[in-house]
């Protein structure tokens, strides 16, 4: 008599059992409570202090957005755990089979390697979602304090962290399958993470192509979601990198295939991923899910800008590390690109920090060109940039609707009960559950 259950369901059950038996996962679960709690309690207090100062006019409204004030810092704890703890859980689950010899038994079941790795990734993702429960508890507590919740922006932040976990799992899977020993896999995984930080640093210093590459590091991609922004190019890049990591892992768990062939297949996968990500960078669709429209110009401005005829070119004479350029990129160009993907931006600078260019003629200038009409300005604020563009285009925006302006949700609270929940109840509950589950 043979089992009627599909082979992959047996594997799914086995991987779930192995996850529950894994000390690394229980450590992750225990740590997540205090980690999320620390971030949540700290951000609630800061939010309360800012709220206590009063003032809810349009200008300061953004400061009282729970997205920026509460959810971005609270979920950052998840990012920290995804970088430093989740890889070890993944490596334990994937490399453990090779270490114990279980893989030699299991690969004799003719299940496609992609399914094997897919099942492991699925279980790891489920494990990560369970580990993220403290973040959900934080949301419930915030609600109980009378805090405002805006579903779409919280869902966006959560989706960004699930995507980040997917990237970590894929990286850990690839590293664990490529290397002979779990400790080597851990070093490889952390090296890649540190490598992305170095890339971000180089991008900040040198700009240019490095800056474009750095947009697709996990940290940068999560940051977009944490601001409530979903960009199609980022989603394509993340999905492709996850598929690449899992694909490479699937290639390398086939122990009986010659190494030369596995190397060739991995290179082919990497090349395909490069093509897809490169093509994906052309995707300009994005959606701002933040309640405060933090990533967008006001609606009347967006409508006016969309109607401007002719190409828009902007030449920015600011160095990559100049704070004015960072401000201009974030508050003007990022928003402008969302409504006018055809905008052409050129950066001009002789140095990376700009400190020694301050006295150079033309440094700090921003040249605008709308349909051949040009002018220059120096202000990096959104208001000044929009005014200049409207002036060149000869258009007048519809007056802003005062009702549509986001006025924020100030809240004065001391996060009652949060300390007990995150520092005492959660760890105690997880330790008890761990002792019970692991026997």
């Amino acid at each position, binding site marked *: *008599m043979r089992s009627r259950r599909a082979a992959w369901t047996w594997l799914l059950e086995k991987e779930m059992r*192995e996850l529950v038996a894994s000390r690394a996962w229980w450590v992750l679960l225990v740590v997540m409570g205090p980690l999320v709690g620390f971030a949540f309690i700290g951000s609630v207090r800061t939010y309360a202090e800012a709220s206590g100062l009063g003032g809810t006019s349009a200008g300061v409204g953004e400061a009282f957005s729970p997205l920026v004030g509460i959810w971005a810092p609270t979920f950052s704890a998840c990012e920290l755990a995804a970088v430093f703890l989740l890889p070890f859980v993944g490596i334990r689950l994937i490399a453990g089979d090779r270490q*114990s010899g*279980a893989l*030699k038994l299991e690969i004799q*079941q003719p299940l496609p390697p992609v399914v094997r790795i897919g099942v492991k990734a699925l279980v790891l993702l489920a494990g990560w979602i369970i580990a993220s429960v403290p973040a959900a508890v934080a949301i419930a507590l915030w609600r109980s304090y009378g805090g405002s919740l805006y579903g779409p922006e919280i869902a966006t932040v959560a989706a960004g962290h699930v995507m980040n976990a997917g990237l970590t799992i894929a990286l850990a899977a690839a590293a664990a399958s490529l290397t002979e020993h779990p400790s080597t896999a851990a070093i490889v995984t952390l090296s890649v993470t540190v490598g992305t930080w170095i890339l971000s640093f180089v991008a900040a210093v040198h700009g240019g192509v490095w800056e474009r590459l750095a947009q697709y590091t996990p940290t940068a991609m999560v940051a977009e979601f944490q601001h409530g922004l979903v960009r199609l190019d980022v989603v394509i890049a993340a999905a492709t990198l996850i598929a690449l990591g899992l694909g490479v892992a699937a290639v390398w768990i086939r122990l*009986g295939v010659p190494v030369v062939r596995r190397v060739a297949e991995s290179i082919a996968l990497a090349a395909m991923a490069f093509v897809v990500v490169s093509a994906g960078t052309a995707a300009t669709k994005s959606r701002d899910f933040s309640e405060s429209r933090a990533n967008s110009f006001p609606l009347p401005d967006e409508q006016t800008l969309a109607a401007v005829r002719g190409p828009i070119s902007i030449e920015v004479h600011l160095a990559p590390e100049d704070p004015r350029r960072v401000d201009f990129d974030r508050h003007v160009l990022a928003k402008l690109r969302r409504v006018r993907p055809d905008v052409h931006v050129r950066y001009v600078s002789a140095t990376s920090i700009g400190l020694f260019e301050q006295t150079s003629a033309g440094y700090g200038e921003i040249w605008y060109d709308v349909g051949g009409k040009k002018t220059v300005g120096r202000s990096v604020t959104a208001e000044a940039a929009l005014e200049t563009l409207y002036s060149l285009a000869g258009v007048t925006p519809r007056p802003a609707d005062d009702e549509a302006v986001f006025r924020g949700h100030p809240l004065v609270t001391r996060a009652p009960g949060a300390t007990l929940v995150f520092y005492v109840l959660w760890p105690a509950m997880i330790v008890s559950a761990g002792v019970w589950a692991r026997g």
Partner: protein
Amino acid sequence: MEGLTKRYGHLAALGGVTFSIRPGEILGLIGPNGAGKTTLFECMAGVLPPTAGELLLDGRPLSPVTRLKTLFYLPDAVAPWSAQTVRWALEFAVGFLRGRGDRLDAVIEGLDLTPLLNARMGTLSKGQRKRALLAIGLLTAQPLLLSDEPFEGLDLRQSREVAATLRRHAERGRTLFLSIHQIADAARICDRFVLLSGGKVCGEGTLDELRDDARGSGTGATANLEEVFLALT
């Protein structure tokens, strides 16, 4: 097996290994440590890529899919699923590896595993783990079972019981290919032998056939398998 070769750089772990396996027999792979027994098994099972050589079934090369349906390899020195119970490991063998559930009780009884069913795999002694793994191998449905050192870690009584269990399975038509470095164990259970030394086959046949070969080589006494092995390697 036809011309199986496995090289690690300039080092040849196996050099053109050729032999045959007959249905329903217990074939012993005899060789000292480092002879290449495990490498041979892993190349046959497809968990290690061979440099050259083919596995043939009725004269035709086995495709990877057919190989998985034809043989199951039970490695030595593995400790899988340490957090799971023996009972679960056996059920997993039946479910995931598409083993024979109808043999479950007989295998448990034959290998005296009943007292161990609720023990975790990671808490078993070497001999107990060997019996649990052997049970997994015996539960699989492939007609050919490759078992690397099936008597390793077993005491004399357990070795005899395991040998009897293996014999029963062979009598029911299962072909067994056992890698054994203890020649006395091999002599007790195997129908035929493949002698492997330095990655090369030094002899193949029944004890009598090997004895004749050894006599022909004129290298000394050939009263038992140990002497035959020494004479031919």
